[in-house]
């Protein structure tokens, strides 16, 4: 609930900042999927806002998870800041990000890192690094009988992040269909050795309003040459860029 209030405040700030910003966008999406951690399907709605001013941009977003797994409903908070560099006709984006996943009453996961993105006519590349922290929540130490001396965190400093998407159409077309491989999603950073397979489509309904559809397949153990099914999820989302429909 606390995080919902923070989000509404950020959204309000976003709309008011839009008066001076050169660019503002709001995206909302819903994931529906299954995995090996709980019976039944999970549902993960999320919302993100982005602002751009000159060559600089910032974004924040939240995700909630409803599933039979013993998890907190508020499941992720992402923020990023970055800049655009356009040496010729194709852009490079550099961004720093943080991703907090308040997993359960007991533990949380935090990722911080950077991503360099580059877009061509038919290709999108993203590479970067994420450092991951698994942490026990302070409240768990007293309430769960865990001794204060117990170790509270594990840090993985280096995790190569990547995304490669190949699109059917030129990026300026009003619709597109792509396929690729990635270990990062808006609210998820997998280990570098756990690639996810991605099918992605979008269409512009009117100027400034697009719908996107994604399908993600998560395999386990592929690089161990002993692969199994882990899970999948589908996503439907809208992206609204208010300034563009005027």
């Amino acid at each position, binding site marked *: 609930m606390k995080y919902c209030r923070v989000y509404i405040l950020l959204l309000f700030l976003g709309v008011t900042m839009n008066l001076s910003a050169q660019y503002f966008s709001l995206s909302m999406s819903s994931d529906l999927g299954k995995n090996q951690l709980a019976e039944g399907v999970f549902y993960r709605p999320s919302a993100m806002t982005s602002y751009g001013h000159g060559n600089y941009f910032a974004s924040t977003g939240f995700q909630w998870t409803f599933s039979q797994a013993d998890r907190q409903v508020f499941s992720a908070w992402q923020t990023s800041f970055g800049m655009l560099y356009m040496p010729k006709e194709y852009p490079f984006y550099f961004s720093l990000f943080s991703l907090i996943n308040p997993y359960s009453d007991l*533990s949380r996961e935090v990722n911080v890192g950077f991503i360099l993105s580059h877009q061509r006519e038919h290709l999108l590349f993203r590479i970067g690094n994420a450092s991951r922290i698994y942490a*026990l929540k302070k409240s768990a130490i007293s309430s769960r009988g865990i*001794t204060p001396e117990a170790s509270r965190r*594990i840090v993985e400093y280096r995790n190569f992040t990547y995304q490669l998407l190949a699109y059917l159409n030129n990026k300026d077309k009003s619709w597109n269909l792509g396929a690729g491989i990635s270990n990062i999603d808006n609210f998820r950073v997998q280990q570098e050795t756990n690639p996810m397979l991605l099918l992605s489509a979008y269409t512009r309904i009117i100027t400034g309003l697009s719908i996107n559809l994604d399908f993600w397949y998560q395999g*386990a153990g592929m690089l161990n040459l*002993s692969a199994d099914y882990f899970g999948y999820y589908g996503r439907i989302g809208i992206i609204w860029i208010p300034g563009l429909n005027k």
Partner: protein
Amino acid sequence: MDTRIKQIAIGIIAVLLLNGCAYDLDLKGFLGTSEAVNHRFQSSMEWTVLNQEYEITVDSTAYTFLVGGDSHVGTIINIEKMLQIAVAQGALAVSVAGDVTTGREEGLIRTDSLFRKYPEVAKFIIPGNHDLYFNAWERYFELFGPSVYTLRVISEEEADLFVFLDTGSGTVGLEQFTWLESLLEEESESYRNIIIITHLNFFRNRMTGSTNPLNEEVMTLLDLFAEHSIQLVIQGHDHKRYITEFGETTYLTLDALKDGVKNASYLELRINEENISTVFHEF
């Protein structure tokens, strides 16, 4: 541009072919294993119903237990040394935390013969990814039994629980996870120590191509083990020792037992009334 694409394609094909020539790799495993983890779990549970759960009764609450990982038989120099040391020391049992063999028939047969040579020590093994190569699961199961099981070590005063988990194909899977969750929920209060042994290591403490369970699964297992104050989780797979703690739980990744590996070692678990201590012994 076309030439460059051709060169890259030829390079990729050459690497794949060279890997394919590597005798112990099974490239089709990239797409899937012959028997999924849920199937292996079901077979293991059926086996346990027919054959009883493992239980060892001890006179003293103190005992030693030797654990190695990744013997990749093949050759048997180090794994046999570990068995000989176990016999000489009077260790309660020996365990290999996955990748016992390369999945080749001759490796499976050689391991079975080796184990039969030392009947005086109990052996508890689990499959790793290599044990599942070349559709080896059915043969592994026939020779060595289940991939998921428990061992109860019972003395007059205390009892310890060892839980052997199958992560050979990258995930514990829904059925095994549900079983583990209810096992810990129902029984964790009844034991002095609970020790988990599995193949895949959870953490990326160094740059390595070895693959861990997916991030959500690591988080879920960390949470479960912290919740039930599991004392020790022993893992293999990465061939390089690493010890870390999260809450009350110690996570320990083993060196490999594999012959010819520079850092080959096994772990001696010393369990007594006070605590569990761990000592690595290099070959």
